[in-house]
């Protein structure tokens, strides 16, 4: 399972990179990307609290970042 998963991710990653000619914006079209609400993790404390809560209630962790952890709610 994990090997398939890795391969898929790599393929998607590579296709993202190689498809760049049509993707992306010019530097002066970054107005929307510059907004706080468009940052990948625009509310880091909220994410940290959520990660911690879900880490203590669910078996999965991480994904967006390293996530959860650091607590004995094992």
């Amino acid at each position, binding site marked *: *399972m*994990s090997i398939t*998963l*890795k391969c*898929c*991710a790599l393929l*998607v*990653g590579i296709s*993202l*990179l190689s498809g*760049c000619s049509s*993707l*992306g*914006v*010019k*530097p*002066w*079209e*970054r*107005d*929307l*990307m510059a*907004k706080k*609400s*468009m*940052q*990948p993790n625009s*509310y*880091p*404390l*909220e994410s*940290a*609290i959520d990660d*911690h*809560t*879900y880490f*203590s*209630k*669910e*078996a*999965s*962790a*991480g*994904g*967006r*970042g*390293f996530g959860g*952890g*650091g*607590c*004995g709610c*094992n």
Partner: protein
Amino acid sequence: MQLINKPNSVRLALAAASSSLLAGAAHAEEKTPWLVDSALAVYSESDSRVTAVEPIVALRKDMGGDRMLGLKLTLDSLTGASPNGAIAANEAQTFTGPSGNGSYTAPKGETPLDTEFKDTRAAVAISWEQPWGERNRVSVGGNISREYDFTSAALSAAIARDFNNKNTTLSFGVNVETDIIDAVGGIPDPLTSLKVGPNPDHKDGGSENKTVSDLLLGVTQVMNRHWLTQLNLSVGTSSGYHSDPYKVLSVLNTDGSLSTNPATSGPDLNSKWYLYDSRPDSRSRQSLYWGNKIHLTEDVIDVSYRYYTDDWGIDSHTLDFRYRYEFGGNMYLEPHVRWYSQTAADFYHLYLNKGVALDNGVNSSGAASALDYASADSRLGEFTGTTFGLKYGIELGRNTEFNIRVEQYQQTSNAGAPASMTALKGLDLSPDLTAMTVLVGYSFEF
């Protein structure tokens, strides 16, 4: 003129150069303030179970040259009662608390809750992030977390590199964490019987530890002016003590009634039989996260999916959707829906059957040697979790925002016992968990 491939490229190149001039100069004038981000979360489970109060404050400052120093302090105070792993029975159940002194009783038909559950956690994190050449940013961080029975220390490092005119960012991160568990009343031997009164078999004053390593490989891609997408692949392994020293499993007779401890003498004679939690000493997990931010005319959609799998047999899917509705006056409302579903770990058991294997396998110290691992921790069972939330935020100025969010989380499991276990008839063996979280956030600069 190497740039003049297209006739209008001077205009485009000048637009780029001028916007970088203005952005850079804007930065040059700024006095760099401390950016303060603070939040307070109150988490409360229904049926007077766990209540948690978690304040966090994070500080960030540009120390010049875009080198960011970050400090974060988290406090976390838990009170209430937590399930100890045993299931509800058709009789009252009494347990000795982990400290070996007090005891608690679950009434007939109710899931036993450990009322000694109480904890305060304090964590400090420090981070440093800086440019490395024109295209890279590197960051390092450390984190120490302490509660009375648990200490954790972690180090992390990451590098992010830009490609394609900064439309693509590749990032790679490493996190290493070491945990020390110093359980109240000592660390019990796995799958041994829970004793009545202080447990002389517990490793005296012993502590156990665990090491966790994670790697994260991420691609962030600006798809167009409105759409940012992110794909992360995470791989993690941990080794060491993974069991929960406070959790037990009920041992049931074939009719579903509670078994009696096989002890032939001493205080455990004729007591009910519970075995301590036992988990493998390693775990390896992978996850794939796909996040998207889509900017409509004014509003922003945040939608993500995560697939998670580990070698304990747990697979999970998480879907998360947020819609940020900008309703003017720098205010927004953000409804949030999250759906989570996981399969059970291979060694998850709602309870253990007092079968032939278990009976014959019990050794002199009461350990069920025929079983390697077993846990009744509901976190490792099969369930579905749904979250509904609503957030309101108002931007009060540059880097200044107030927001409040209310969410409800519900965990539903269908785990139960077969009809042949007549003693369990009519009992809710896997009651829903419902929790409310109120989160207040305020960020500002000074």
